């Protein structure tokens, strides 16, 4: 006897939630293409194909139904996030390896959807970053800054090129990220306002990058409106990043970039709305979400300023993922009728 009450339900399915997340990524990706060209699309397509094939294989090995677990869309979300996080001129095998790592070690080794302890996309990203530091830190410069104009077909060729590009090509096409650039220039005792006059700096963050971040912001607001994510995480994260940056900025504006710069560069916005809002690897209690967000904000800033890596989002998220079970158990909300 199928004796289960309640007999009625009113909830969006997991697939709907995940596909809305993908939808929310679209404005950011569109602006990415507008600024940097088609490379990112190639990466997204490669990542999507890899994730579907890899997940199907794993599900088949684990003797699980394939269709529902592909259609739930969670694999695609992780793959897309990874694809937009890596440099768009990285060779094709970077994204393929990254996606494979992300889906096996980030997700399925823990039992698949709903069981992973760590954010799968960030697991993939962090492994790539420490394994291929040079590729992973050479970011393409916006198309209109390049000296030689390149065709969109060229971009696909660059990504699909399996052997590494020559040093000249790379230098012509790429640079360090603004965050990285500041870090290296500061060690040469350059004042910040001089550093920021470099062509790669834009109005708020990196040139063009700030536009892309605005796109992500739009997507994030859409998810908030659709109640896909709760406000706690992005607000706590952005606020803590803003305030810690503000403190340092007001102490020494010559060495520390402005809070707005920190929010609009690197992966801050993507992290705030898309990465730390992964429900599976994040905390579930409202208070826990706030602590989680604050801690990631602080860690991102600390790693950016004092650490050895130019961008700290992936490490900060993974670090805080470790704390999630503890945070959850220590921030249980007061139960009705309890003190």
């Amino acid at each position: 006897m199928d004796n289960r009450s309640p007999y009625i339900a009113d909830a969006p399915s997991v697939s709907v939630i995940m596909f809305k997340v993908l939808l929310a990524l679209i404005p950011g990706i569109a602006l990415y293409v507008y600024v940097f060209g088609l490379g990112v699309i190639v990466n997204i397509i490669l990542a999507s194909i890899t994730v579907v094939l890899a997940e199907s294989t794993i599900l088949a090995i684990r003797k699980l139904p394939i269709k529902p677990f592909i259609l739930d869309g969670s694999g695609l979300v992780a793959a897309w996030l990874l694809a937009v996080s890596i440099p768009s001129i990285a060779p094709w095998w970077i994204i393929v390896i990254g996606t494979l790592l992300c889906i096996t070690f980030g997700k399925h080794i823990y039992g698949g959807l709903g069981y992973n302890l760590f954010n799968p996309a960030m697991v993939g990203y962090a492994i790539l970053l420490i394994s291929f530091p040079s590729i992973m830190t050479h970011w393409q410069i916006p198309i209109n800054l390049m000296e030689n104009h390149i065709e969109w077909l060229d971009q696909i060729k660059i990504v699909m090129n399996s052997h590494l590009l020559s040093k000249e090509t790379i230098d012509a096409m790429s640079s360090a990220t603004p965050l990285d650039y500041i870090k290296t220039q500061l060690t040469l005792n350059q004042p910040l306002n001089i550093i920021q006059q470099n062509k790669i700096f834009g109005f708020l963050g990196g040139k063009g990058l700030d536009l892309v971040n605005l796109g992500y912001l739009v997507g994030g607001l859409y998810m908030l409106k659709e109640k896909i994510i709760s406000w706690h995480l992005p607000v706590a994260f952005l606020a803590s990043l803003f305030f810690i940056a503000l403190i340092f900025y007001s102490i020494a504006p010559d060495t520390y970039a402005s809070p707005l710069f920190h929010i609009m560069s690197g992966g801050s916005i993507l992290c705030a709305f898309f990465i730390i809002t992964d429900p599976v690897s994040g905390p579930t209690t409202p208070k826990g979400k706030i602590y989680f967000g604050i801690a990631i904000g602080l860690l991102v800033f600390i790693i950016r300023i004092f650490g050895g890596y130019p961008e700290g989002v992936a490490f900060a998220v993974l670090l805080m993922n470790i704390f999630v079970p503890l945070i959850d158990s220590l921030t249980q909300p007061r139960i009705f009728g309890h003190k």
Partner: protein
Amino acid sequence: MELKNIFKFNGGVHPNENKSLSSSLPIARLPIPKTLVLPLRQHVGHVAKLKVKVGDQVLKGQIIAEADGNISAAIHAPTSGTILKISEEIIPHPSGLPDFCVTIESDLKDKWIEKKPIAWKKLDSAALIEAISSSGIVGLGGAVFPSHMKLKVNQNQSIETLVINAAECEPFITCDDMFMRETADEIIQGTLIAQTILQAKQCVIGIEDNKIEAYQALKKAAQKTSIEIKIVPTLYPSGDAKRLIYLLMGIEVPKEKRSVDLGIQVFNVATVAAIYRYLELGEPSISRIVTITGNVQNPQNYEALFGTPLSELIEAAGGKLNKTQKFIMGGPMMGFDLPSINVPVTKAMNCVIESSPELFPSPKPVMPCIRCARCADACPVNLQPQELYWFSKSSQLEKAKDYNLFDCIECGCCTYVCPSNIPLVQFYRYAKSEIIAQDKAKEAANTARERNESRLARIEREKKERAEKHAQKALGAQEKNSDDEKKLTIAAAMERVKQTQQENIKN
């Protein structure tokens, strides 16, 4: 209608109400059935003590089983007839297991036993409670707790507020709604009686804002009284007693305490009306209003005698339609599948929904929990359903208990909003009954340990005594004591043995 002074609890859901289905027709009376099956356990507490035997003639309203102890309720013959059999029958219970029932074959005369109205205005509380204890009245909202126990107040407690629960928050159910529309006067009278017995200083009726007609009827009936009628927003589960108290007064009933401890007592509308009928008219609890709705020809409320087979109720509502798969007792949020169409109407049966695939589509495939915490947002108790599920699923029962599993009221809000379609409540029910069973086993083990230890101690003692006896014998042989002395020792030893034996029997 305005909502004021209302305290909102966390969470809650607002499913499609579907109440108008069964609230368009007035309450109808059901013809007297040929046979009635009365389970002896229709209430919380001890099984009622049987007072009749097979072949006895009974009159309508005659006691056929009396309350056994305080927490128990009497059962009366709903109509006149003969006791046909006393046997195990399928009862409306989620287990689908049989329980002891009395079957009455009605003589269709419906002849009342002499009604003895009680001059309640002249009696004091204690006498009234005593009288009500044989009325068979239990909480008709579904909790079926014996009502006289709820009217009894300890010396050191005093009831400040009487809350009458008219919320009826579950979708589909309209039995209280219709009852209030048609018999508001009896409800108000009953409320006043309950207030007098409890010596409550004030009385509030809480009603959801989707029952305007019932509200107006109550308002009219309560005009000259001090009873306050408060409207609460339509939000499931506002009809849960603790939630209703919070909505009305902003008071949270603390963990492991009852509302009585705070000077608040809650009754269902139908219960107070039943008290009124018993005292004023001398009619014990023999019938109730049942909503028949869902996939039937004529969804409607019926006044049905307890023991009426469900099949007759269905018949009256136009018979079951083609697509009906099963029958659900209670609402769609907390109800359960009835094991058979022949189960009797009991004191707890407020609603029967005929289910069809259109009405309640079969559940979608279950996906793993993604910890989205939508359930936590919907939980009216502010629990973390995703954690409780995680622990219940992997049978980590201790942990589930630590996360306050037993505060869960099984309202189903979490399951209602779950994107992964996980039957969360089922897991909590499983974990709860598993923990209860384990606790019982532990208790049994403790008794067994004690009994074993006392047995070992006894054997040890006996051994010592025997050794003593031997020693004495040896001593006696040496000193060549007189026979008399020997006899005395033996007698004393015998006495001791007897004593220990008796002790053991007592144990």
